[in-house]
Each structure stands twice: as structure tokens, then as C-alpha cells.
């Protein structure tokens, strides 16, 4: 899977809200404001993202949260990167760290294999380069650099 083109700088945003629910809604709004998905999928996407959170928090660790789902009618993977340097208050990871980097992933329904590969890539990238998290969250780091820090080889 070619991760380098999985997302781009236009899909990096600095989060304005600081609670989990609000952050997730902010990122969903971002998707539809950019017409990355058809408007009629808004309520379904919201339902599915929150449903996944109910099953088990997507705060995976190392200040990283990866809310994700799969939908029909998604042509290309949608990867939105949200930065919250001060942390999202009630979005706690498995290692008890607070989520500061939220990467929302939406794939086509049948792409469970790609789904796992993408999740794995993100986590591996952060784990293997722990110093990158600070760079990613720094305001002076340009969105394009954020992408390459996470998905670059």
C-alpha cells in the first residue's frame, strides 16, 4: 500500500475543541465542509465513528487517537489529521496518556485489510520515531511536513 499519497497537507487541521465528542464532531464537519464525502453520509459516518468508540476507545497510546470506520461509497481512503497540542481532555489512551494527535481514517467497507495496514503503519511510525510526536504537534511544523513525518518512509 502506498502510504505517501494516502493524505495531503489540506487534510491537516489544528483542532479548536478540546473534548472527545467535540473533536470527533469537528473532524467530521471538516470532512463534509471539504466535500470529501457526499453530504448524505454525514449521519451514518457520525453513527459509525461513535459506535466504534463505544466498543473500545481508539486512544491507542503514545498520545495518539485513531478513530476509524469503513463505509460504502467511499472511493479513496480519507485520512484527516487533527492536532491538539494541549490534549483532548476525556480522550485517554490505553497507556493513560492524553490524546494529542487524532488521525481519523475512513475506508471503503470491503477494505478491512488496507484498514489494518494503515492503522499498523501509523502506530509503527509513531512508535519507532517517538521524537516525531513533538514535531508533529508543534505549530511551526507545516501540514505537509506533518504528513511526511507520519507517513513518510
Amino acid at each position, binding site marked *: 500500500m502506498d502510504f505517501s499519497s494516502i493524505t495531503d497537507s489540506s487534510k491537516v487541521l489544528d483542532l479548536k475543541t478540546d473534548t472527545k465528542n467535540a473533536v470527533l464532531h469537528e473532524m467530521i464537519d471538516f470532512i463534509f465542509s471539504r466535500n470529501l464525502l457526499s453530504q448524505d453520509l454525514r449521519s451514518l459516518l457520525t453513527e459509525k465513528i461513535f459506535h466504534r468508540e463505544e466498543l473500545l476507545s481508539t486512544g491507542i497510546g503514545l498520545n495518539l487517537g485513531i478513530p476509524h470506520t469503513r463505509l460504502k461509497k467511499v472511493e479513496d481512503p480519507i485520512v484527516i489529521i487533527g492536532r491538539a497540542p494541549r490534549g483532548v481532555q476525556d480522550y485517554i489512551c490505553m497507556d493513560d496518556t492524553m490524546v494529542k494527535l487524532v488521525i481519523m481514517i475512513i475506508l471503503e467497507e*470491503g477494505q478491512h485489510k488496507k484498514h489494518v495496514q494503515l492503522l*499498523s503503519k501509523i502506530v509503527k511510525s509513531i512508535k519507532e520515531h517517538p521524537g516525531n510526536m513533538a514535531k508533529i504537534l508543534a505549530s511551526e511544523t507545516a501540514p505537509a511536513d506533518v504528513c511526511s513525518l507520519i507517513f513518510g518512509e
Partner: protein
Amino acid sequence: MELFHEIANAADPLNILLLLGTALLAGILGGRLLVLLKMPSVVGYIISGIVIGQTGIHFIDGDTIEMLKPYNYFALGIIGFLIGGELKWEVFKKYGKQFTNILLFEALTAFVAVASVITLVGSFFMPFPQAISIGLVLGAIASATAPAATTDVLWENKTRGPITRTIMGLVALDDALALILFAIAVSVAKVLTGNGDANILTSIVTPVYEMGSAVLIGIIAGKSLTALIDPRAEEGAVLRISIGVLLVILGGAKVIQSDMLLAAMAMGATLSNSAPRKSPRIFSAIEGITPPVFVIFFVLVGAGLSVSGLDTTALILVGAYFLGRTGGKMLGATIGAKVGRAPTSVAKYLRYCLFSQAGVAIGLSIMAQDIFQDSFGKTIAIVITTSTFIVQLIGPALTKYAVTKGGEVGLNITEEDLLEKTTAGRICTARNTITEDTPVTKIIELFSEDDQLYYPVMDKHHSVQGVVTIQGIKSAFLAYEITDFLLAHDLMEQIHTFAAAGDRLSDVNSYISMDEQPFAIILSDSGDYAGILTEQDIQKYITSKITEMRKISNNLDTAEVTA
């Protein structure tokens, strides 16, 4: 009535065309109506003939029937030819002593029984030589059994086993024996009634000549046909040559006063045994034209019947024929089965399966009517046609009784039958399910513990949301970084095929086989999860069911005859 007769006579050059066309259409209509009443269509053809013939509206009169005699010979020739085609040496070898005993006993006992009873009863109404003659001819006809009505019952009820196998062999071969007995009976009857020469030498030589020459020209015709047909010839050419040779042989037999039916039968038997690779095409080509030929034939049979001929004498003879044939067939079948050490079920129940009589019997009676037209010919035709109605009413029902009691019903089940008759709910398995929040580590453990390949994923309302497959979980093996994070929800695939428990396997199988997901989720009537049905489950079920039926059928084969 006269009006229809006038119509029939109108536009004289086209008369035969109009009559044949009407006969065909009337026969088709009559046949369809009788099938709706669960009776053989041949009875419908005859009834149609009665309606439009001499008893009914006289659309077809006696002169026309007389004129169309060559057509009857042609139809009978086809019957004889096809019967001959069933006389394969390998069939006798395959079925062996057991079968031959039953065949000879049931056919010959019926012959002897009917000949005796008819002679005895007939002697009260007619001169003794005539009574014997009628007895012999009816006796010969009595040995025949109608294949179609009997095999229809076997086919409908999916039977398999020793009774079924024996019937399938007998119904074709006892017709052949009937033809031979008929040839002998007719020859003897001719001498007794003065139709032939009364000289003792001639009375022995004549039957020998009639039958011997028939067999000889039949063999020559069979060999000629084998040589004339090119294996690469197209269907039409095969049919043209076959019909041509058959017509020549029938006409030639008449010229040299040989037995026509026997000649046709000998031709079929020669072809079948000497050209086993070529002959199926030839028989198939001839069979292809039989439907309209036989419909018209039987309509003409009915048209030629005059109900006024059904007087007291005829009715008594009908009764005697029926009783003699019934008793003879039942006794002969039972003795033959015991002598041949057939399985118990054959000895007990075969005797109920040999009642039906139609095409060949009626055909032979028409021949007899023609040969003995100045004496008892019409009586033969009336007796056989009337008794045919009776046995066709009871024959199929008794056959069904016999195969049911013999335990053979439903054993000849095919894959298609099972797919049509079995519902998904019957064979689906309620495999273990997992919840959406089941961690992948647990799922891997489950896959390693048993051989289940698909785990349905349920939500908190116990509805199926997807399925985790062994293929799907492979991607999780290498993603060790996120193993603690992944759930069934993340790995599950959407289900492509849902089916109701009451859906036929054939439908579910067709959905599954067209899809890359080789399974369906089965839901109960209330929409709850009932189980999974995979392609493998379906195949396994079919194989085991067919094996089970074959085993039961084989056990019937090996059941010994009790003394």
C-alpha cells in the same frame, strides 16, 4: 353428427390432411385433459378418437380408418423397432438368471392363464377352435406390460432398488416376448380358424416361416442400416435413412407374408447389439418423431372402436381377460422371483407392478383386428381397449403401493432433488458467534481451537453485523503493534448473502456460488440469526444423503428371498 362427416368429406383432395391434423390436435387435447386427471395420456388419445370416430361424431369414418391402415403399420413398426432396441445382450448378462426367470414366468404365466380362461369362457359363446384362437391371441397380448405408465410412477416417486430395477427391465422386454408370442399365436390361430391353410404340415411350417423370415430380414435390415449410416452424418440424414429402411422392411415383410412387427423388432435388436455406438443416434432420431405419430395412431384406434361392439359377450371376455391376466401376472412374478432367488421385496411386491397395459397391447390388438377382420378381430380390439382403460386406472396406483411397501420411494434422489426439496434452515449450523468488541487476540485463539472458518459478528441486539473469516484475520497476524487495539468490528466483512431458513437450498446455493463469499447467513422466521450455510455444508449434505439412499437401496438388494 352428419354435419361433421360432411365437413370431413369436403375438399376431397385435402381430406386426409384435415383428418390427420384434427386427429393430432384432438389427441393432444384429450391427452392433456387425462394427465390433469392423473391418468396416462394414451388413454386421452383413445378417448379423443372415440369422440371423433365411429362411436362419436363420425368425423373419421370406417373407410378412412381402412385407408389409413398403412399408417398404423408404420406406427406399429416404430414400436417394434424401439422395443427391439431394448434387447441388448449386456442387459441380460447384467441382470442374469434372476431377471430372466421373472421375465419368463410373469409373461408366460399371464399368457397361459389368459389363454386358458378365455378359451374356457369363450367356448360357451363360440366354436371351440375360435375360442382357442381368441385365447391364444389375447394370451399373447396379455404378456405385455406398458412401460410409460409404470415408469412414470417410478420416476415421479424417485424410486430406486431391486423392484424398480426389475420393473425397468421387464416392461421393455416382456413387450418383446409379447411380440414373439403374438406371432406364434396368430400363426396357430390362422390355422385353427381357417384363415390359413388347414394342412398339418403347413400349420407347422407357416408359423416357422413367418417368424423365421421376419427375424432374417430384420437382421439384414439392421446390418444394412448400420452400414448406411455414417457416424458423421447429421441428425436429419440419420432420420431419413432410418425411416426409409424401416418402411422398406415393413412393406417387404408384408409382401413375403412375414411377421412385420417381429421384423421391425429384429431390426432394432440387431442394430442395438451390433452397433452399440451408432445405434443410440438412430434410436434417438426415430424417437424424435414418435410423439405426433403415436398420438395420431391412438386417436385412430379410438376412432375405429364401435361401442356397439361392447356387447355382453365382449364384457364377459373383458372380465375373463382382466382376471386371467391379473392372476397370471401376479402368480408368474411371484414364482419367477422365488425361483430366481430375487430379494424379498421383489418376491412380495413386484406382482403389483405389472398391471399397466397400453401402447403395445393396443397395437397388437389392431394387428389382430386386421388379420382376423372376418372373424373375431373386432372382439380382440374391443376387449383389449376396454381392459386397457381398467388397468390404466388401477395400474399406476398399485405400482406406487408396491414400491412404497418395498421401501424404494425416494431412494433415487439426485442432487437437484435435494437442492429443490431441502430448506436452508434444515442443514445450516448455528456456529459460534462473537461480539463486535471481541479482541483480535481472542479471535485468533478461537480460530486455533476449532475448525470453524467463519465467525458471525453480533451487535448488542444480537443482530448479525458481519463476519470474521480466517482470510480476514490473516492481516492481523503481522500487525502486532495494534493487536490490543483491534476488535472483531475492525476485521469483519460485510455479509453478501442472507437467506431465510425456509429458502430452498437451490436458491441459496445459486446465490453463494455466484459470490466470492462462499456462505450465507440464515435467519429464522423472526429474523434472528439461525446459522451459517457454506458451500461445503451443502455439498457434504448432498453427498451424505445420496450415499445413505444408495446404502438403503443396496441393502434391499441383498435381502434374501424367504422360502
